């Protein structure tokens, strides 16, 4: 028995890695994607393009604008002379925001009134708009406080802000560990979802079924490449995350790896289920996408689950990536121990168990 199982595993590896093109298609893209996406996937705004329209001639407005010119968050793209220039500039994406200092700003301040400043922001990407607005607010608040302190009336209270686990609020620390979960899922699914369908289309799966191999042995044979490739690729990505992107790994690999293996097993289960449902590669490909796309969205990879409507939040419990994503992020940044993850680990194990058994059953019971 051991011998024939071994033979099957070897055959599965050969089927996957025999030709150069499929070898490349499995191994190379995740690494390239990690490097590109690790840099691309960020919510941090740097070098926001800013144009300035100053309708005032005084020193006060010049001092205020100086703050914006020296800030690293903004790149000044121009100084406008008339109001009519604003709309075409923002419409044509020439500047993300325009800062407009009102007439007689300096005079008003000298009289003890407020200087009117208007900020006009391109809201096409609302998240970017909010970030830019927050930068502007921070600069102006600091400026106001300094001016008020000079006159001897400081604020009656302070707000001290601290962020735990990620003090500089770098969104890359949040996204890159997420990419581990994302790419591990895609690689594993790519390897497993096409494997049975490919044999069904070629007609060799029937031959496999009439051999003495039992369904669970076929399952192990089909699952092995996914497990090795998935865990191997994930380890490579974890290494790059720590040493290249310098995301702090506060927690322990002994917490991460058991979770990773259960996660990969649950993805293998889903992949083999899709594969045994399909009779052609096209159907398997469609099935894989029908799983991947919702799984990525519902996992909270790009936007938090808490922002979703209740029904969708309930649906996320069916998504294995949701659990692993929580674990990988919290292990990396918070260093959370296993006891925090009981409620993530058992649903993921259950998904693995159900999908793997379903796949085994489908091997024999879908025969056309």
């Amino acid at each position, binding site marked *: 028995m051991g011998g024939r199982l071994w033979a099957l595993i070897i055959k599965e590896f050969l089927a996957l890695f025999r030709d150069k*093109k*499929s070898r490349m*298609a499995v191994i190379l893209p995740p690494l390239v*994607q990690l490097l*590109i996406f690790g*840099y*691309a*996937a*960020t*919510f*941090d705004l740097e070098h926001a393009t800013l144009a300035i329209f100053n309708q005032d001639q005084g020193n006060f407005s010049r001092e205020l604008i100086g703050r914006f010119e020296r800030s690293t968050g903004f790149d000044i793209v121009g100084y406008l002379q008339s109001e009519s220039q604003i709309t075409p500039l923002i*419409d*044509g*994406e020439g500047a*993300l925001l325009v800062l407009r200092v009102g007439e007689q700003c300096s005079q008003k*301040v000298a009289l003890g009134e*407020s200087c*009117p400043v*208007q*900020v006009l*922001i*391109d*809201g*096409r*990407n*609302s*998240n970017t708009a909010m970030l830019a*607005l*927050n930068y502007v607010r921070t600069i*102006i608040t600091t400026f*106001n406080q300094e*001016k*008020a302190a000079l006159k001897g009336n400081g604020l*009656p*209270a*302070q707000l*001290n*802000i*601290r962020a*735990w*686990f990620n003090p500089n*609020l770098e969104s890359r620390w*949040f996204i890159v560990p997420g990419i581990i979960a*994302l790419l591990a899922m*895609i690689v594993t699914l*790519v390897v497993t979802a*096409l494997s049975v369908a490919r044999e069904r*289309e070629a007609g060799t799966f029937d031959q496999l079924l009439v051999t003495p191999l039992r369904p669970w042995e076929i399952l192990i044979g089909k699952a092995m490449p996914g497990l090795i490739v998935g865990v191997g690729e994930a380890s490579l990505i974890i290494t790059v995350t720590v040493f290249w992107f310098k995301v702090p790994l506060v927690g322990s690999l002994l917490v991460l790896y058991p979770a990773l293996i259960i996660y990969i097993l649950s993805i293998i289960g889903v992949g083999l289920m899709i594969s045994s449902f399909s009779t*052609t590669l*096209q159907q398997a*490909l469609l099935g894989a*996408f029908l799983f991947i796309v919702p799984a990525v*969205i*519902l996992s909270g990879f*790009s*936007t938090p689950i*808490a922002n979703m*409507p209740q029904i*969708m939040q309930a649906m996320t419990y069916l998504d294995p990536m949701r659990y692993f994503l929580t674990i990988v992020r919290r292990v990396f940044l*918070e260093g959370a121990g296993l006891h925090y993850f009981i409620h993530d680990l058992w649903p993921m194990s259950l998904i693995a168990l159900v999908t793997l058994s379903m796949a085994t059953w489908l091997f024999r019971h879908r025969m056309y």
Partner: protein
Amino acid sequence: MRPGRLMRLKGMMRKEWLQVIRDPSSIAIAFFLPILLLVIFGYGVSLDAQDVRIGIVVEQRDQPSLSFVGGFEQTPYFHPSTFLSIQEAETALRAAEIDGIVWVRQTFGSDYLTGQSPPIGLIVNGVDANTARLIQGYVQGIWGSWLEQQAELRGGELTPPVQLEQRIWYNPEVRSTDFLVPGVLAVIMTLIGALLTALVIAREWERGTMEALLVSRISAPEILVGKLIPYFILGMGGLLISLAMASFLFHVPMRGSLWLLLTTSALFLWVALGMGFFISTVFKSQFVAALVAMVSTFLPAFILSGFIFDIRSMPDLVQWLTHLIAARYYVSILQTLFLVGNVWSVILPNSAALVLMGLFFHGIVYRKTHKKLE
């Protein structure tokens, strides 16, 4: 025109059409997939944090402390819960039961009344940096209005040297759905286009039916056009469904012209189908083509198109790479057409880039499909 070309083309299209109809998966890709994805993306992808779980620790229940934390009860952004000590609140933050803590110390009220400018502590869980930043913004908003309110109570009006007025154009309510749904259309159309055609030519080679086609009188361009048209019609069907859902289900405003939207969308569909044909022609094996389609379509369109992660925030090298992703041009066109209007200085360059990419994909396919066997 060579005689009989129309007839051969019709025959080819008919054959392809029958193949589409007989495998339910193509129909599912064109019509079921966009509906499913748009519902999931439209409702599931949101950057607007609401009901943030915040822990409130007030150590002394005096007037200044209570008036400040009272601000958290009145906004839809927060779902406050009270903790008796900072230790308890920190334990809850560590267990991820809350996302942040507002800490008003025992001496806050008395220090405030004696004019010592005491601090209020805000601790946020920084793991999700973007949400953490939003929470900070919300808290600063509450803090700002509390300061104004206090200044009024003391009889003076707060006149800051600079009074900021903010206007967010095109999306004054800052609804993230309005910019995400147009972007989702680009991701969906990329998937549909590539999924429909990625296996089409590889399948013919693998099953040996390509040879059968090659020995017929049909020419290579006729094969390609005959294959393109049925999938183009299917794709346009899916596109119309998606556009209708964006308008009627998600109420995204439509400020540009409809015909321009349809023209640019048809252009993008042509590019996306070209990408599928390209994968299919270059790799010739269904298995490898499927692998390539899986890793090269969804994720790049999702992450590099600017649909959710702003391209302007990426490092220069990555920004340059995004120019290779067709979806990026379409996202830009869609966001502008939906939210701003017919801004030609955005639409023309992006459409030109799409035309170039389409010519590239279809050109390679055309060159590689010749009536010779290797």
